[in-house]
């Protein structure tokens, strides 16, 4: 028995030296990093950190006054810059809590290699953080924009991104993990959604605006909103949510306003397959299948007839095809294979890929693409007929 106790105590001692208390830090000696931005400035690496620091008496709980502050440091490396923050800040930042990384356009256009090592190697940076790219402004400015009712702009960005995805379905969130894997995989190029500071009623607000497209280590251009919508329709994973507007006249851009119909997409899925022709040329055929509901109509014409519903389905399929093609054309223009067709070919035709890999961007740019879209209406929601205006 005594031997057992002795053994137990020795075990405990050994255990404590194994794990140790070395990383123990009291909660009130820390601050949360809600997000951080990476920038370059004349060869110096600049890191901006948004910090949430509750202050005041402890009774507050969730209603405690919280002040947000942005610290910026520059050094020869990002880790070095991050360390420098501790020189003039009294608390330990908890990096693992941050939710978004904001890259500056300058950094993206310069060279991604500058930051990919830092964000991949560091064990305090979570791979599920969302990535954003600022257009024109520095990450620091973006983080300083007030985003009521949300206290922290880096959190607000994440919530904006998630909200718009299920409601309007234009942009897709990109996590660090996803970005990283596309960055290192041959035959697929990464994208990052862009954020811009715009003036609205004299106040600076953040707005999601377009998608940055990369090729190799640099950003090469941006997709517009329409093209971004097309990009979302083209990914092989199933998408949920989103709205698309069609016009009964067939002209979505300039058709009469009174004939606009908004269709909801509840789920969509794209299936792309490479097809080799007898002459050796390659065609990528894309099949988009989508389901959805009639969401809003501005005419008083009864659209809920069999003929009209089929017409609406055709119009919506047409619109989907149009947006997808717009995106494909832009990507081909930028020579950036953001759809991952290259990696798809490498899986299905490995020997062919061996020949194509070296010159893939220009081959991608000249690829023939066929898009087929099929949209089916499931429901028309609460009313049976169109609203009639009675005089």
């Amino acid at each position, binding site marked *: *028995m005594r031997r057992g106790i002795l053994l137990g105590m020795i075990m405990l001692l050994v*255990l*404590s030296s*194994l*794990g*140790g*208390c070395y*990383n*123990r*830090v*009291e*909660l*009130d000696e*820390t*601050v*949360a990093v*809600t997000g951080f931005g990476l920038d370059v400035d004349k060869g110096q690496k600049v890191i901006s950190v948004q910090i*949430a620091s*509750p*202050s*005041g*008496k*402890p*009774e*507050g*709980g*969730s209603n*405690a006054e*919280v002040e947000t502050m942005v610290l910026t440091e520059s050094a020869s490396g990002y880790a070095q810059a991050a360390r420098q923050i501790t020189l003039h800040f009294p608390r330990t930042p*908890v990096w*693992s*809590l941050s*939710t978004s990384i904001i890259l500056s356009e300058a950094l993206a256009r310069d060279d991604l290699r500058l930051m990919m090592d830092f964000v991949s190697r560091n064990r*305090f940076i*979570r791979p599920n953080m969302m990535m954003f790219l600022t257009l024109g402004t520095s990450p620091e400015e973006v983080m300083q924009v007030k985003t009521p009712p949300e206290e922290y702009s880096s*959190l607000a960005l994440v919530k904006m991104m998630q909200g718009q995805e299920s409601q309007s379905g234009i942009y897709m969130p990109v996590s660090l993990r996803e970005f990283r894997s596309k960055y290192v995989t041959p035959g697929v190029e990464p994208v990052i959604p862009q954020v811009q500071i715009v003036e609205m009623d004299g106040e600076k607000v953040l707005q999601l605006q377009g998608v940055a497209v990369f090729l190799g280590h640099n950003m090469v251009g941006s997709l517009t909103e329409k093209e971004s919508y097309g990009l979302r329709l083209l990914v092989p994973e199933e998408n949920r949510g989103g709205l698309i507007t069609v016009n009964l006249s067939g002209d979505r851009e300039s058709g009469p306003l009174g004939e606009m119909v908004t269709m909801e997409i509840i789920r969509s899925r794209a299936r792309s397959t490479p097809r080799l022709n007898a002459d050796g040329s390659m065609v990528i055929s894309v099949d988009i299948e989508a389901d959805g509901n009639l969401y809003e109509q501005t005419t008083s014409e009864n659209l809920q007839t069999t003929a009209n519903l089929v017409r609406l389905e055709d119009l919506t399929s047409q619109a989907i095809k149009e947006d997808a093609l717009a995106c494909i054309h832009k990507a081909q223009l930028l020579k950036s294979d953001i759809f991952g067709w290259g990696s798809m070919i490498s899986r299905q035709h490995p020997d062919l890929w061996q020949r194509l890999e070296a010159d893939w961007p220009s081959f991608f740019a000249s690829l023939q693409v066929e898009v087929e879209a099929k949209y089916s209406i499931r429901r028309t929601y609460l009313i049976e007929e169109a609203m009639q205006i009675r005089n």
Partner: protein
Amino acid sequence: MRYINRKPVRDQNNASQPAKNDPVQAKTDLRLEGLSEQLDENLQKLQLLLENCSDAVTRELSFGSEGSNKAAILYFDGLIDRVELEEHLLRPLLHNNYEPGDISADKQNQIVTALIRELLPMGEIKTLDTLEAVCDHITAGDTVLLVDGQKQGIVVGTRSWQSRSIDTPQNESTIWGPKDGFVETLRFNTAQLRRRLKSTDLKMEAMSIGRISKSSVVICYMKDIAPDKLVSEVKSRLEVIDIDAILDTAYLEEYISDEKYSILAQVEYTEKPDRICGHLLEGRIAILVDGSPMAMVVPASFPQFLNAGEDYYQNFIASTLLRLGRLAAFFIALLLPSVYVAVVSYHQEMIPLSLYLTLVAARQGVPFPAAIEALILELAFELLREAGLRLPRAIGPAVSIVGALIIGDAAVQAGLVSTPMVVVVAFTGIASFVTPSYNAGLMVRILRFGMLFLAATLGFFGIIMGLLLLAVRMASMSSLGQPYLSPVAPFNLSHVSDVLVRRPWSVDTTRPYREGMKNQTRQKLPPKREES
């Protein structure tokens, strides 16, 4: 099977041979003497033994047609039923002018035999022939009649004393099911068992343990269910116990359990006869001790401590959910403070951001590290609980008010502790009350502090290590030879379900497996109802 190799702890023969020339020893020698034919001599010796016992009563009398037979009655006041004594012993002797026929010289005990056979209208009656037996019986509440010229005395059962009436157990309150509980008198308790299981297979073997207390101990088991080996093992472990007194059933636990120096509860206690009957029907053994309302059930396995008696009376779906809730409460009571401390001091990245901000705001200005804070509050809670237990009922509520005000409010207001910690400790406290068994709850309360220490020094690593050690310890333990974690480990598919769910009675046709158990079948499956 661990108990087969078990050696007796102590040799009883050695213990009962103390040094000579000891005044205590002299008295013992006197006790060992047989009764003599001379009543006066017997009374003299008994006088010596009963010296300074103010509650001992000796009543001398003479009976027979001419008062020719001298006799004496001995008893302890307060332990006997006086009415019975007067009506059924004194009245026949004194009023009947009884004359036991011819007494020949060679049949010395004929008067005694005749009295028992013909005169005394008592159910419990027998003869005795040593002074020791006289002492043993009168201290137990019997009355002894000594007759002059007889080498034997008569003992009649007149035991009756003031005792608590059968009541609802205070510690095991239930909403559903039988409400009666055990009392301090052994005979009432055995009667409650027999009343529920009307079978001669319900065996109640009695023995007496305790040099001074000579407490009656009864081992109850179902003859056709309980394994013989288990019964004989329990008996042999009880037989070797040498102790001066048994004041509660719990005295026996340390003597008969497999691991004497363990915090883990190894036997189950209950005050409820219905619960005991349930255990007996599953092949367990109950040990009842005179003077204690707590019955002990062996062998115990850990999952058993999370079952409440009500589980078997309520709707089985409700019982199953409650049982799962109880399992969750067990882990909350064991781990919640340590998990909180580990997360707050080591693993901040695990906290969602909004919760993090709330916690940081609440911890602003708290002077103690989270681990110390948890320790202070846990200690305060345990002290409050203990104080509430000891205080007279009239001022008991005052403690909870003071506790709630001081600990819950003032300490937070003063910035000594943080609100989340108070919530954590309070929730832990509530969870720890969920465990139906008190001794298992006690074990959780103590282990919680160990876990807190591990969490404070090693974070989650420590908690996992602690849980591993606990699991290894539990898995290696046994209770009367039955693995402590059975039927979870060793795994028994058909009975492991009874740990988490309460199966409906109509499909629960087998008893939980126990090595050597006879008669595994409870009942047949009910016949299928014909659809008409």
